[in-house]
């Protein structure tokens, strides 16, 4: 299995599985069952913003935890390459497209809203790649739980915006505009993360010690972050 999981195509498929397991197989059925209860309906009326926040954070919790688990146990090689998080993130976003977008395709074509839907999906794909880079960077920097928490909160943030846009009836393009601003920061982070991979992070650097009788070729102080 380790040999199969080193294949980039496998990374893409694992990304798809990650979304499939975390959302349609686990979170969405749980949410659906909760939504059938009287208490949920009461909260929808009594605490609409609170409920939006909880639901949004749950999306972050389930997806980022699944991403974390996939990275921890199923992805190889475990190196500093940028290709793996990129391909995995694209796979994750692609499965989301298949699940949400494809079933509504004919309706979108009929209503003429397909261009808007494509825009929205493209922005969502960028976000998925961003979250994947965050989780991968957590392992690379040996702070997996901290980066996991950041990914959960940032994922929750974008879903909170989506929820609030429905509650306060923002225009579709206003909402997409906010997502685009979010994605600009996401792209900046991705580029920074990729460029940062060319030098090993501090924890992995081995200081060179001078051989006996000779001065050091590379001084410890010259490590550049």
């Amino acid at each position, binding site marked *: 299995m380790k040999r199969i999981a080193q294949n980039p195509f496998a990374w893409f498929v694992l990304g798809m599985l990650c979304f499939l397991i975390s959302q349609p197989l686990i979170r969405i059925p749980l949410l659906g069952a909760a939504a059938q209860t*009287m208490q949920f*309906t*009461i909260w929808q*009326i*009594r*605490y609409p913003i609170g409920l939006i926040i909880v639901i949004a*954070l749950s999306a972050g919790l389930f997806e980022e935890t699944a991403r974390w688990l996939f990275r921890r146990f199923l992805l190889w090689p475990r190196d500093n390459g940028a290709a793996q998080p990129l391909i995995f993130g694209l796979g994750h976003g692609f499965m989301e497209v298949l699940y949400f977008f494809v079933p509504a395709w004919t309706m979108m074509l009929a209503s003429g809203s397909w261009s808007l839907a494509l825009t929205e999906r493209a922005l969502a794909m960028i976000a998925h790649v961003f979250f994947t880079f965050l989780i991968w960077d957590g392992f690379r920097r040996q702070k997996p739980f901290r980066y996991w928490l950041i990914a959960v909160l940032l994922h929750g943030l974008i879903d909170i915006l989506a929820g609030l846009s429905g509650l306060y009836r923002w225009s579709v393009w206003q909402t997409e505009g906010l997502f685009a601003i979010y994605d600009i920061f996401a792209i900046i982070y991705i580029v920074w993360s990729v460029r940062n991979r060319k030098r090993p992070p501090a924890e992995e650097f081995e200081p060179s010690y001078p051989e006996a009788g000779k001065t050091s070729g590379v001084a410890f102080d010259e490590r550049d972050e």
Partner: protein
Amino acid sequence: MKLRGIILIALLLGVLMLGGACASDSAKLAEGFDADRVEESAVKVIDLLNRQDSAALVDMSDDTMKGVMPEAKYQEVYDMMKEWGAFKANEKTEVMGQQSNGVDYAVAIVKSKYEKKNAVWTISFDKEMRLAGLFVK
């Protein structure tokens, strides 16, 4: 646990509490509504639905509701209700207020037990106690 982690979790809890606080006041029943009367009217609506009395339902609806749910449209609701089996009882009711476009409504959430399924009704009334909204899951 590191200080930054504690601050992060505190922020998260703060956001959640803010979200709850922001919305709680809007759920109070507005003046001019009587909670008991709202509950009685909601139970009456469910009874009319169980008896498939579309004419009475349309008669007690406001103008918007009459446009959205004419008599013929109620057949879709009855077809769905057929799968639930016979009506057993209304188990629980909660009454609260809601505002939409600056207009106050009373909302009754009723959990009804049927032979094969439970249903949660969300029934809204305007100040004149006319049926203004009907939702079921």
